[in-house]
């Protein structure tokens, strides 16, 4: 089964730069500091840096996976090529579920933020429905529209990164010392906890066929992933300097709480604007997730993508209703973080090695 999207549906390789952070930076950044600082304390930023670099290595593997065989331009094709139709499709279905899971986390966590920070009485079902209708509209527009939305979202939300300036007058940079006072194991544990925040780069395995001049896209993908890393490192550095380590342990949304300190003459509570604007970061995320899930489903089951998408949106809606309190959301987050960790750190490298072996054997045969 060859995939060859029409050229009118393809994007320039340059846009991969936006797709990377567009999928990686989601809701995690609003509160990842607490979780990793618990493990590695003042050295947490080193963990963020290390896992960011590891992600780049994995990204390189993804590109290797994609380029090797004839017509193995996306994950479905790779699976089919390596494992045959049935086993391959089983793996594909796992990935569909995984993409759906990411979308659920994104929407539900964002809504939780709205519930806790802005409107405790908000009707969650209604809000999810509205968001999903928006998602439907964007995804229906095709991959180009989603890419455009990613870029716009990033541009609209980018002023929020400037907010890191405000906590600086409260900063205690000596909090960062002593450097490397935690053991290697602790730093690695924090790396593991950091995984969830970097997830999303593996989507390249799905949208690769949609890139024009694919060979040129790798450079941009790496730059995009590095950009994500820089944003995360800056966020954690500012948080570590602003909060006392013992205090940070109790702050669920460290980045959001940090915005509270923003003091502008014309607005008292900046976090309200921040949270609202953040929808422009979350929505492209969800769109990409749903798109990837429905695209893979289409390739596996052969139905029309639109039909699969409606089904997926309904699944998301049901799950979001089911996850109705902090405890469940937290648990779901932890479990998905684990699954994401194993998929990215274990499955991808194994797939890479397996493919190398298979191609070597095939090479000998021919």
């Amino acid at each position, binding site marked *: 089964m060859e995939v060859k999207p029409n050229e009118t549906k393809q994007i320039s390789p340059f846009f991969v730069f936006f797709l990377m952070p567009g999928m990686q930076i989601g809701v995690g950044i609003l509160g990842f500091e607490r979780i990793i600082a618990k493990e590695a304390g003042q050295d947490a930023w080193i963990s963020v840096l290390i896992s960011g670099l590891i992600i780049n290595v994995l990204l390189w593997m993804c590109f290797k996976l994609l380029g090797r065989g004839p017509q193995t331009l996306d994950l479905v094709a790779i699976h089919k090529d390596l494992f045959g139709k049935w086993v391959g499709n089983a793996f594909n279905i796992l990935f569909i579920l995984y993409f759906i899971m990411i979308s659920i986390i994104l929407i539900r966590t964002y809504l939780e933020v709205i519930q*806790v920070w802005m*409107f405790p009485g908000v009707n969650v079902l*209604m809000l999810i429905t*509205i968001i999903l209708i928006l998602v439907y509209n964007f995804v229906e527009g095709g991959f180009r529209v989603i890419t455009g939305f990613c870029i716009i979202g990033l541009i609209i939300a980018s002023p929020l990164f400037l907010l890191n300036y405000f906590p600086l007058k409260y900063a205690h940079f000596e909090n960062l010392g002593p450097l490397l006072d935690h053991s290697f194991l602790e730093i690695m544990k924090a790396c593991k906890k950091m995984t969830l925040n970097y997830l999303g780069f593996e989507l390249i395995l799905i949208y690769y066929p949609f890139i024009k001049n694919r060979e040129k896209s790798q450079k941009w993908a790496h730059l995009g992933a590095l950009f994500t890393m820089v944003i995360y490192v800056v966020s954690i550095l500012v948080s570590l300097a602003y909060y006392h380590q013992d*205090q940070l342990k109790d702050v669920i949304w460290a980045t959001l709480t940090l915005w509270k300190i923003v003091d502008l003459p014309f607005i008292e509570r900046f976090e309200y604007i921040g949270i609202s604007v953040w929808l422009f970061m979350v929505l492209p995320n969800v769109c990409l997730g749903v798109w990837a899930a429905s695209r893979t489903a289409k390739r596996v089951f052969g139905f029309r993508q639109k039909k699969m998408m409606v089904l997926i949106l309904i699944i998301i809606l049901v799950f979001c209703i089911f996850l109705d309190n902090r405890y469940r959301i937290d648990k779901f987050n932890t479990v998905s973080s684990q699954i994401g960790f194993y998929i990215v750190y274990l499955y991808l490298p194994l797939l890479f090695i397996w493919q190398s072996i298979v191609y070597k054997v095939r090479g000998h045969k021919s």
Partner: protein
Amino acid sequence: MKIKLLLITLASFLMAACGVEKQILEDILIAEVVGYDDAGDKKIKGTVVVSVPQPGEEAALGKEVYEADSHDIKAARQQENAKTPYPIVGGRLTVTLYGEELASKGLNDYVDTYRRDPMVGRDLYLAVVHGKAEDVVKMEPKLIKTPGVQVKELIEQNIRTNLPNVDLHRYLYACHGNGIDPVLPLLETTGDQIRVRGIALFKKDRYIGKYIPYEEGFLYKVLSENFKLGSYEIKWKENDFTDINNVESRVHYHISNANQDPKVRIEVKMKASLLEVQGYDLGKEVDLNKIEARAERVIGKKLNEMVTMFQENHIDPLALGDHAKSKTRNFDQKHWEETYPDIPIEVDLDIEMIQTGIAE
């Protein structure tokens, strides 16, 4: 196209049903200053100043005081609502005051709601009141200033010279962090005025009953942060005073050997100017040096006394423990806390007179 249009219409209908609570400015009372006192029997008494919008285009905001007894802060708010025509909201709360008695029992339970409530900003000022908090709160509405809040401006004004930088975030920072103890401004009422009495000293969340008097707040500030304003009066002998004006003051902490036998040296460098002198001839070079040396001796002694006082009371408002931690590998918190009262702390003060005003 038709389907899209339908979806958009549907979305806007759904939006109307999102169940968001409306808060219209005329229909709420905005709490500005709130005070809590111990009311015995594990109860607290909350007193709140709210601004009441008046009708009319240029009408000033009226102010009103409500009070209520309850076990916790949110319940007190609810009790107050029993007396008010509109709900009281805390989104613009600027100052929270605690009575001396309540503060000495520990503030954690009564600060928690401000830490937790997303409605409350982080630039909220906390303060302790010598006596009862309600006295200060009740004094508030008499003042003509509207809608700005007298207590808030009082604290803000003094933070530049005699009070350390304290707001909710910094309080939480010090209260939750190991190796730091918070300080809060101590207010009092004199006649019909509100006055800053000094800096209340805390052991974690408990007010220890001691404070640094207002005049010496400058010295505390010199020890704890870099700043650029403020002045201090040095007494030479009876009826003989000099006023030193701080132009720029910098402080560094040198902590050595924190895990075994800690030693602390606090290095203060101050650039100062003279604005008022009695009994010296400034024109002569010698005299200026004399003043410098003398000021160093007098202020240095005061600073040493202050640090010793902190050690005697087992409190660490200068965050020496935290500084030690950030400079020591495998920092031994326990050992530090045990030895803290006996650590030799040396204050090294260097004053440089850079100006003597515009008169010779």
